[in-house]
């Protein structure tokens, strides 16, 4: 499972209507304008369902969610913690 690839693909297919040329995986979602608040909510729903993880309110910080790379790193950490539990 390539978490980063799946998140990027979801954004390109569902939010950018297939136009993935300009997606910088390190770019801030907030500053680049790729995701608005609705798009962000959509993406949270996607990763919770696709990776079967639950994200707590206090985990919803830019540190975890403000780019493709940050988000995939966070999801991978959640998956690793789940595997250990």
């Amino acid at each position, binding site marked *: 499972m390539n978490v980063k690839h799946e998140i990027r693909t979801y954004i390109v297919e569902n939010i950018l209507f297939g136009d993935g040329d300009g997606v910088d995986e390190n770019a801030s979602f*907030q500053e680049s*304008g790729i995701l*608005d*608040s*609705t798009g*962000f*909510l*959509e993406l*949270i*729903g996607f990763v919770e369902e696709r990776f079967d993880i639950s994200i707590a*309110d*206090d985990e*919803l*910080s*830019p540190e975890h*969610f403000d780019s493709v790379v940050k988000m995939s790193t966070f999801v991978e950490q959640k998956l690793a913690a789940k595997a250990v539990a």
Partner: protein
Amino acid sequence: MTIGQAITWDALTLDCEKASEQIVKSIRESVGNKLKRRGLVVALSGGIDSSVVGALCVRALGPKRVFGLQLPERDSSSETLALSQLIVDHLGIEAESTDITDILTAVGCYRYRDEAIRSVIPEYGPDYKCKIVLPSLLGPESMRVFSVVVESPDGLQSRARLPLSAYLQIVAATNFKQRVRKTLEYFHADRLNYAVTGTPNRQEYDQGFFVKLGDGAADIKPIAHLYKMQVYQMAEYLGLPQAICERPPTTDTYSMPQDQEEFYFSVSHTVLDICLYGKNHGMTPEEIAPIASLEVEQVAHVYRDIEAKRRTTRYQHMAPLLIEPVPEIQANALH
């Protein structure tokens, strides 16, 4: 001390005499020369913005050419009808009151909203109250995610984060309220050959705090350039009833009491006024922080949120997009 004077800052002090003269002149020219209508319809909620707009319209056209509408529904606060009647009486205008609860019930406003709330809080029942809220911008930096808060008949509150589908359905359902009101405003405008006013202040207009084709629809928006504190100053200058001048900003959209801060802006209207003015005038967070009594990083966060809201709500200001320009119509609009 009124709400608008809780924090004062010279930069936001309005020359009310000059500003009101400019607005009154512009209303007269707009209604007669551009809109070619004979008067104005104003929906009066009993809040400060619509009351100020109503008073300015009366100054511009006289009370006989302003028609007021009071449009409460079952979730409106008990103050709404009393204060809107107070301003109608104060202005001496003709007005009509229509309770829009039956219309909203018929289109499914409450049913769709409640269905979405029950998807995250199953015990939510017909006698419960509700609202949706955002986290404050002044706490730890977090992503902007709405939660729904419900209150049971015995006063017990529950809160749940909203997934996308529930959030969208609640907003879509409650938007019926603003759109039904605007439909009735245009009905009366059409039958009287009047134009329709919109009542946003600068915060609401700039930050997209309105429903497209709901309260965002209007022929003229007389106070869209005024900061909220300036609207309070104008209310005092126009001599509006004290109960209206002292009413805090409210959404009056959900059955639980809800201010605009927790629903949308995430900071108080005074803080937002100062930050918005500072940002619009190229002032740095370091310059604004002591004026707003905030930390520099908090001001920087508010600045980022102002930009984010502008991006997110840009489409609400857009006219329908055309595939090719129709220059003849654009030319007509300019003359």
